[in-house]
């Protein structure tokens, strides 16, 4: 340990002396929560963060919401730029106004030079105030520096002469805030506490929902580079003070947390040994104290901090390069006891003052027990987003793109992180920095744990073309012949092929014109609408080269066009003779039996609640009961349970889902077909019994948990634990791969005699719409663990999957019977996603190979530990 670090820790010994020993368990148990973090190269106003937080309402329970903001504007904060950059922005929440005078006189004015101070403005909206169970505290803001004499005394007293003066000042602020919190909050009557004290950043939190924070403290128009929002779900009931709400601060960083530690006690002990004691008794507080200790006191580089928090283990550790293993072994030896255990996911916003960077990071636990999604938008405005749910990402982008059309509705790249992985470390950092020594515009780069850059898959698109596409109705005529050819062809598949093959050479104006023509053509007649819905759906589903155009933009425009076309369908109460009949929140009571079995019910999900009896899933199951055979649900935005409640034997019923549907989609389906035209979220197809599930994208955690049968096709990858505990005969094709724990406890009989299996292709589309093999067919360290039945057919022509990834399974040679079993599913896979069997899957480096050289079979072996009889005998009973 550095001598200065030791001195700093010693200087905090009064903390351990004043505060009682920590409790053994956090006093306020809480579980997962809704979190979202956003970093943008251009300052973003607060109202854009409102919609994702409202979307994740159901991830909180109104007992705590908070916002952290980093990278503010001097004008809005009412101070010159130098003050904003250099001063500590001390924010004190006065729960009891009477505490202010003594607190200031005792703890602030004697030590700080205050350059500006004022009360944070609050809302007077009656409706909002009525909604808030607990009146939020008055917050006072002080822009201040530590007085020279106070600092000098502090340095002398603690022997910190060797420490950099600025760092000593940081430490003074940190300890002073601790003193305030201890004296005025933790030691008894909760009069006041420090919400934040970092530079160019602040935190506001209340008892209520996070969106109420924005409304109450009037942050709708506040501009900032980094925003973090948190919906809290504490389990203890009568929370009346905001001190326990997230985010919590270290010094220049704010942290929110989704999850729950199993080893709160161990981590507090670890911190107590370093003279750090929590005052608010939640695991989030100790998380940020841990981060602050590692970064500010020990001055570890980010990679090492992440390693100390989420240690790399098992197979991933073995696969690290030697120099990294050596370093990590040392870190783990010292800090293992302080690393949080259990499900957690951190989002951290940081003003890295010395590096002159603003940072947003997301760190996942090694077991990947919490859902998380990262997203990246490139272009003139660069945005990085981290959230608990993908729909929160889409929601924030949807809101921003309305104000700034150059930002597309969908991100250029979405991904999930595999915690503790050897190839990227399970953590990502969005850094904002300004070129030209702080005066130029901000740029954003995304890096992984190891500092390697992460970029969007396709960067060949042209910004000018994209800008033209971003402003629809700019009057561009486009190539009329091209537009007519695509739109009027009467055959969606053929129109699409022609569109996809010509896109690379087309300018944006043609595409703009095409989409507006598609919308107007669709409104002409029923059959036109049917054709255009098919065409637009193909444009959204498939991946194809886009030439000078931005892929996310095309998807966004196609989605907008599709929504416009579907919204123009006749309403269900108005018209009986139409192929599409519309239901939305307003007329859902008017839903009636269809006139013709070939009609489709179109459900506009936009204004429906996320769940509950007023939700979309009930409209769909009612439609099923009334005799509809096809439902198109569009504009979903986190709506849960779509396809649940259809009842047994729903064969012949089909649901097409557009947008960003929520968790538990198609869970319990027994016969119906559900198609998701985009990414699916978590818990898709739980106990799926029969029928078909097609996902034109990725799927989240625990896909097909406890599945019993049916067929599922996934164009992309699955996150953690797909097919866990599946039994019966599910037949699954996953074209990408899975983060880890694929088919744990799989019990699906013998696939050759009617049992179940999963085909994993380990491939992906690259940015130009070409198929490529993934670097690893299966990256995780746990494959087919403890499975007693079923099989995995994995495309692994390079023999990358090894026995060390298995726990109970074995790799065997593909037989002809296996291949005959797989073949129809791969052919269907080709039909659905355009992934060619003969031209791609069966070729290696362009050369055609026999199937048994390409696919390997992983099957169950009878394990002694899994057979009761043997176990009994072993025990000698």
């Amino acid at each position, binding site marked *: 340990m550095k001598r200065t670090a030791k001195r700093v820790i010693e200087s905090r010994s009064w903390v351990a002396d004043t505060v009682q020993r920590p409790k053994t368990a956090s006093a306020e148990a809480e579980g997962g929560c809704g979190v979202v973090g956003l970093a943008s190269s251009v300052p973003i106003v607060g109202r854009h963060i409102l919609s994702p937080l409202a979307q994740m309402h159901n991830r909180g329970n109104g007992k705590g919401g908070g916002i952290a903001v980093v990278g503010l504007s001097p004008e809005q904060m009412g101070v010159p730029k130098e003050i904003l950059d250099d001063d500590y922005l001390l924010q004190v929440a006065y729960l009891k106004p009477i505490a202010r005078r003594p607190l200031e006189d005792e703890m602030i004015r004697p030590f700080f030079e205050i350059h500006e101070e004022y009360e944070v403005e609050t809302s007077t909206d009656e409706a909002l105030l009525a909604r808030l169970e607990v009146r939020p505290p008055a917050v006072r803001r002080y822009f201040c520096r530590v007085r020279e004499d106070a600092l000098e005394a502090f340095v002398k007293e603690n022997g910190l002469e060797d420490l950099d003066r600025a760092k000593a000042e940081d430490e003074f602020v940190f300890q002073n805030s601790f003193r305030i919190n201890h004296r005025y909050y933790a030691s008894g009557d909760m009069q006041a506490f420090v919400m934040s004290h970092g530079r160019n950043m602040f935190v506001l939190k209340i008892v209520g929902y996070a969106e109420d924070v924005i409304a109450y403290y009037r942050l709708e128009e506040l501009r900032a580079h980094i925003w973090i929002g948190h919906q809290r779900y504490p389990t203890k009931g009568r929370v009346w003070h905001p001190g326990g709400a997230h985010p919590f601060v270290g010094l220049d960083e704010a942290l929110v947390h989704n999850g729950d530690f199993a080893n709160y006690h161990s981590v507090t002990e670890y911190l107590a040994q370093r003279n750090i004691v929590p005052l608010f008794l939640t695991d989030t507080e100790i998380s940020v104290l841990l981060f602050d200790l590692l970064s500010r006191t020990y001055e570890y580089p980010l990679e090492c901090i992440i390693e100390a928090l989420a240690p790399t283990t098992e197979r991933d550790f073995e696969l690290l390069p030697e120099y990294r293993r050596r370093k990590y072994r040392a870190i783990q030896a010292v800090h293992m006891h302080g690393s949080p255990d259990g499900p957690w996911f951190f989002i951290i916003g940081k003003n890295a003052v010395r590096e002159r960077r603003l940072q947003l990071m997301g760190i996942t636990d090694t077991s990947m027990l919490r859902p998380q999604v990262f997203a990246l938008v490139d272009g003139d405005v660069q945005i990085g987003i981290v959230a608990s749910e993908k729909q929160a990402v889409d929601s924030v982008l949807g809101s921003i793109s309305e104000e700034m059309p150059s930002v597309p509705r969908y991100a250029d790249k979405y991904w999930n992180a595999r915690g503790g992985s050897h190839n990227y470390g399970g953590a990502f950092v969005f850094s904002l920095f300004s070129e030209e020594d702080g005066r130029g515009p901000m740029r954003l780069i995304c890096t992984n744990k190891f500092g390697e850059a992460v970029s969007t898959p396709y960067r060949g698109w042209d910004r000018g073309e994209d800008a033209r596409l971003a402003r629809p109705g700019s009057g561009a005529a486009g190539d009329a012949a091209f537009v007519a050819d695509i739109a009027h062809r009467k055959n969606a598949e053929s129109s699409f092929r022609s569109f996809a093959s010509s896109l690379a050479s087309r300018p944006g104006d043609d595409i703009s014109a095409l989409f507006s023509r598609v919308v107007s053509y669709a409104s002409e007649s029923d059959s036109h609408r049917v054709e255009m819905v098919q065409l637009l759906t193909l444009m959204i589903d498939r991946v194809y080269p886009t030439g000078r155009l931005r892929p996310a933009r095309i998807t966004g425009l196609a989605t907008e066009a599709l929504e416009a076309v579907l919204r123009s369908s006749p309403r269900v109460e108005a018209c009986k003779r139409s192929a599409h009949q519309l239901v939305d929140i307003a007329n859902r009571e008017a839903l009636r039996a269809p006139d013709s079995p070939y009609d489709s019910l179109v459900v506009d999900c936009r204004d429906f609640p996320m769940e509950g009896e007023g939700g979309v899933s009930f409209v769909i199951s009612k439609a099923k009961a009334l005799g509809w055979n096809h439902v198109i649900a569009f504009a979903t935005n986190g709506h849960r*349970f779509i396809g649940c*409640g259809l009842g047994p034997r729903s064969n012949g019923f089909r649901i097409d889902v557009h947008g960003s549907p929520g968790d538990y989609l198609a869970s319990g389906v027994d016969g119906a077909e559900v198609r998701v035209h985009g990414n699916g979220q978590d818990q898709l197809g739980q106990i799926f019994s029969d029928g078909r599930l097609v996902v034109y994208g990725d799927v989240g955690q625990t896909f097909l948990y406890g599945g019993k049968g049916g067929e599922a096709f996934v164009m992309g990858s699955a996150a953690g*634990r797909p097919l866990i505990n599946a039994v019966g005969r599910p037949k699954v094709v996953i074209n990408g791969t899975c983060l880890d724990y694929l088919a744990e406890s799989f019990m699906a009989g013998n696939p050759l005699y009617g049992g179940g299996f999963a085909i994993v292709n380990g491939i992906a589309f690259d940015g130009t719409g070409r198929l490529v093999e993934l670097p690893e067919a299966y990256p995780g360290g746990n494959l087919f663990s403890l499975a007693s039945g079923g099989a995995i057919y994995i495309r692994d022509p390079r023999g990358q999957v090894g026995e060390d990834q298995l726990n109970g399974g074995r790799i065997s040679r593909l037989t002809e019977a296996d291949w005959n079993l797989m073949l129809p599913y791969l052919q269907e896979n080709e039909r659905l996603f355009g992934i060619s069997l003969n031209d791609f899957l069966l070729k290696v480096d362009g050369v055609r190979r026999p199937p048994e050289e390409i696919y390997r079979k992983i099957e169950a072996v009878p394990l002694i530990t*899994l057979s009761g009889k043997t176990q009994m005998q072993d025990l000698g009973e």
Partner: protein
Amino acid sequence: MNRFKVVRADTCISCCLCESLCPYGVHRRVEGHTRILPPDDRKCIGPACEANDFFCVANCPTNSLSLRESDNFKSLGDPRWTADMILATWHQAETGAPLPLDHPANEGRSGGGFDELRLVLPEKTPRYDPDDMSTSMELNRRGTGERIRTSVPFYGGGMSFGSISVHTMLARVVAARKWDTFVSTGEGGYPKLLVPYSDSIITQIATGLFGVREETIQRSRIIEFKYAQGAKPGLGGHLLGDKNTPDVARMREAVPYTSLFSPFPFHSVYSVEDHKKHFDWALSINPKALLSAKVSTPNDVEMVAVGSYYAGAHIVHLDGGYGGTGAAPEIAKKNIAMPIEYAIPKVHRFLMAEGIRDEVTLVASGGIRTALDVAKAIALGADGVVTGTSELVALGCVRCGNCESGRGCPRGIATTDPELERQSTSDWGSSILDNLYSSWRAQWCELLARLEMSDISELVGRTDLLRYRQRPAKEVGE
């Protein structure tokens, strides 16, 4: 079963003096036979008879009679389920007669748990009419949804098809229906025979999701989410290969004769907000259902309970560590979960302090054996209990502990072996359970009468009526 063994030696001359002496009818000669029958020692009162003039052993002119404890009896039971308690339960189950409240068979000799607690009851029993007494339990205490009352303060806990025979399942359900209460299916599905009784069935959704289908969720009025089992926290359910017979495998859609393990925990639920989502999922399939969360008893059990309430649970079911069939590993049963007698008052008081106790039905399970155990659990703060093993004992279980092996159950209860199953029928079983419940209810009525109460809900949380046997001064539940 005989408690004592009366042995008649070959030296007997069949003088039949003993027949004329014994008022209990142990010795009998059939008219016309020369030799006396072997002693019917089930009727013998044992060494206590020595004091009587008519003690047969002392009176036998040829000294042919001897008396000792029966080997069967000696080998029966364990400190928790003593031989006396097993016999008393069998007696109750056969006759329906209540066991006197001061009978020693109401308690075991484990030296802990409910055996360490004593209910303080006034000596005198006032006159009462059992019909005026309420022993019912409200299962939905929230303001909305179907109100369901059971007529007894318990329902049957989850024992799956596979772990017990279909006759046993059916017997439990038929008896439950008669008493307006419920039985949980346990993990692993819903045999067809039970479908007509679905109004009295609780569908369990456990971590393996075996046998869970939309129709089983839609059929039930109550859905139970099994998060953990007090007998083996940290382990999912397991059904070893031998018991996974073709019938069971069909129900669970698994391969016959492979061992089936459920994971721990639900891999889709790692937080309270996941937990709410999980509930919402079940409600999206059956919006009318009541929800129950079955959890074990970790140190922060009160946080778990309050979290379940806020997620929407109607019933919070605490499963302590004394229960579990022979299939649960001994080391887990005895060492992991918090004892239920600590967990109940902890949760009860916490919910009171939160101001939500009136909206939750708190039930407890894990080692509840007798009517008095039920009363003690209620006095500790539960609204009612969940039963399991006591029903199996009533059906003839001798607690041999071989539940996990397919042909291990000598009574054909915890087996799905078609041959062993034939030892009982569901009609017989349901009448046995009916008797047991009648007997229990009669015991509760007397207990309430002694306490001058008329409704068992008045007993909830009355820890002042409980004393520790070893430490009478200490208040129970602290």
